[in-house]
């Protein structure tokens, strides 16, 4: 694709924008009031495409949780129609509710992880994240130093003015999250002297993000997954700030999702395409897991470090791990009770 081709429609838009801008200046020049801001805000809903009507109905729709079954059906049909037109293929939007007697849990073997980041991209392919500008990824893998203690470092310490002996080896940042590398790019993984630590939404039982949301657009589903009604989110980003695991991402601009890469099997609360100005995050691949399928990241992990299952089923993989292995939850001191467990063999 040449960059010229890409530019053309944008140029037209620029012309239109300029004329609109002039309008605003005339209207707003005299009055120093909020009216102009409110006016600019309405522009957001003033769409030029043929689907303006659908957009309006979407704008007026209720929070997903409060919709009647009929309204849910309408909303889903509207979306299916719009997405199918937009992406040029038959897109399904699923509204399957949580299964009875299921509480989803996840376990990750940090001893196994080699930091290949295949989970990151499996997730992107499955969940229709924005590919570029901004790039959105729900999983972040951190490279951590194993540390190297040496006798030489003994001499590099210093006696504190108060006489406290500080050893040079104190500066070894083995296993310190704050010292991790997020942008590592070696030729091959795993690298000698490092281990890897993937993080994503922990689906907390007591999620801080849900508590701070002023409009209850994000909530915990009965199967334990914390979801977002993208159509109800006002974009205040309180959840982004409140998450201790940095799991939430924000659509700073209109997401860039190439039609050919779009995954047409979607769920209303899961991987359906998002719009600008809303938060998103891992949903344990709701669209798959509620149909009984493993999450995309579990399936792709080449070392089998990722495990998923029903925490209420004693025979499930996760429950067997909780039974057999040593597990820990990340930042357990915050009482968020993640359903994402880390374990070692």
């Amino acid at each position: 694709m040449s960059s010229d081709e890409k530019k053309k429609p944008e140029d037209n838009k620029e012309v239109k924008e300029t004329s609109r801008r002039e309008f605003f200046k005339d209207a707003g020049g005299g009055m120093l009031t909020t009216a102009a801001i409110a006016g600019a805000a309405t522009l957001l809903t003033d769409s030029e495409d043929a689907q303006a009507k659908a957009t309006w109905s979407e704008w007026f729709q209720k929070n997903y949780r409060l919709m009647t079954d009929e309204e849910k059906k309408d909303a889903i049909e509207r979306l299916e129609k719009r997405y199918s037109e937009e992406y040029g293929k038959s897109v399904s939007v699923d509204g399957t509710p949580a299964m009875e007697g299921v509480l989803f849990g996840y376990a990750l073997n940090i001893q196994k992880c080699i930091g290949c980041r295949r989970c990151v991209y499996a997730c992107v392919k499955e969940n229709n994240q924005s590919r570029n500008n901004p790039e959105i990824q729900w999983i972040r893998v951190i490279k951590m130093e194993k540390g190297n203690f040496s006798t030489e470092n003994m001499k590099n310490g210093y006696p504190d003015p108060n006489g406290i002996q500080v050893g040079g080896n104190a500066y070894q940042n083995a296993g310190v999250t704050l010292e991790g590398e997020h942008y590592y790019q070696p030729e091959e993984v795993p690298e000698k002297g490092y281990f890897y630590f993937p993080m994503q939404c922990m689906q907390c039982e007591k999620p801080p993000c849900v508590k701070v949301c002023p409009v209850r657009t994000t909530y915990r589903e009965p199967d334990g997954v914390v979801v977002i009604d993208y159509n109800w989110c006002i974009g205040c980003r309180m959840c982004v700030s409140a998450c201790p695991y940095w799991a939430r991402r924000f659509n700073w601009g209109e997401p860039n999702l190439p039609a050919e890469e779009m995954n047409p099997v979607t769920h209303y609360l899961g991987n359906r395409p998002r719009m600008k100005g809303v938060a998103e995050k891992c949903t344990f691949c709701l669209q798959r897991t509620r149909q009984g399928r493993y999450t995309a990241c579990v399936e792709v992990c080449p070392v089998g470090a990722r495990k998923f299952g029903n925490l209420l089923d004693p025979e499930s993989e996760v429950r067997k791990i909780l039974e057999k292995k040593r597990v820990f939850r990340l930042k357990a001191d915050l009482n968020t009770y993640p359903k994402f467990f880390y374990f070692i063999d």
Partner: protein
Amino acid sequence: MRPIISFITDFASYALKGGSKFRIWMLFLGFLTLLMFFGAYEQFTKGMIVTNYNDQVSWGLYEAQFVFLVGVAAAAVTVVFPSYIYHHQDLKKIVVLGEMLAVSAVFMVIIFIMFHMGRPDRLWHILPGIGIFNWPNSVLTWDVLVLNGYLGLNAVCGFYYLYKKYTHQEVNKLFYMPLVYISIVWAASIHTVTAFLINTMPSRPMWFHSMMPIKFISTAFAAGPSMIIIAFLVIRKNTKLEITDNAINFMSQIVTWCLGIAIFLSMSEVVTELYPSTEHSASLHYLMFGKHGLFGLVPWYWVSVLMMLGGFTILLIPKLRKEYSLFLPIACVLTFFGIWIDKGMGLVVPAFIPTPIGEFSEYTPSIYEIINSLGGWAMGLALFTLLVKGATGVLLGEVKYKGKLASAGWEPIIHSKEETYRG
């Protein structure tokens, strides 16, 4: 009804008329506002991608202004409180100026909230009744309540008082005084709740301490009155309104005390965080000294410290504090900008560096953020100028009702109108 309409028109026409200095000032603010309309248009159509916000640092310049301006709004109480609790006669005469500041500051706060939001078109989702209001769980909903309540209280108190002055009537104390007392308590609440908004998130260790509300209030009561003093000095110089030295001295004492407390609290924070120097102090460490080779905020921090200490030193010396043409304005400007840095970018941004999972990423505002913020300030200052100018006219008696009132004294019909206004 007639007196109310004529009050509005008289007030507005007095406020809008002015000399060349006034015109240049308003033109300047108008220009910045126009720039903001452009910036706002870009942001509201393209999304927040025009800002430099990112997933690592998801709050920035707008939220910095928001936090700071809530403080300025709350600081109106530093005029109201001494007037009605201590019966400070000189301040009591100009108490309405404080209320005008509160109204303008909350107005600016609303502008910055609009810029903060990713989906301002969905603002109705947060309106109780038609939307969902996650109250009492979400602290943000508390903030919405207290800020709007505060705006209402100050607008009602201020304009009720001005209206009564305008029509040469006595204020109905049974109506007015309870509102004044409520607004005093309410002022503390807006800043406390704003502090709770950010300090109830253990995910951001830099914010997560119980000192936040008191530090917010003390810095607010230093920065806000600084701005009020400057406004007083400008008004005194340019209008016939009598603002006594006594009133100004009282305000500068408040600044001195509160700035002193703020500096003390900052020092406590630094010692508490840096002595043990845990992972949780990384943000403060980054702010003060830089970390991992990133030093973006370090100069700002130290400039802010110097400004606050400089301002405090001047204010501590009575002779300089009472030198109205040079040293007091300098001290006020130093205090105002010192706190603006400390409580704005110096508070909001480093809390995101590092991220909760340890990524260090610097942030500098984009040009759109800057023009939008400048414009937000300009619109607020323009409103403040107009409100204060109109209020001065009323206080001076230059704006007064020329018609005849239906009945002398308190008028039930007017009262009920005020009540509608309050709702």
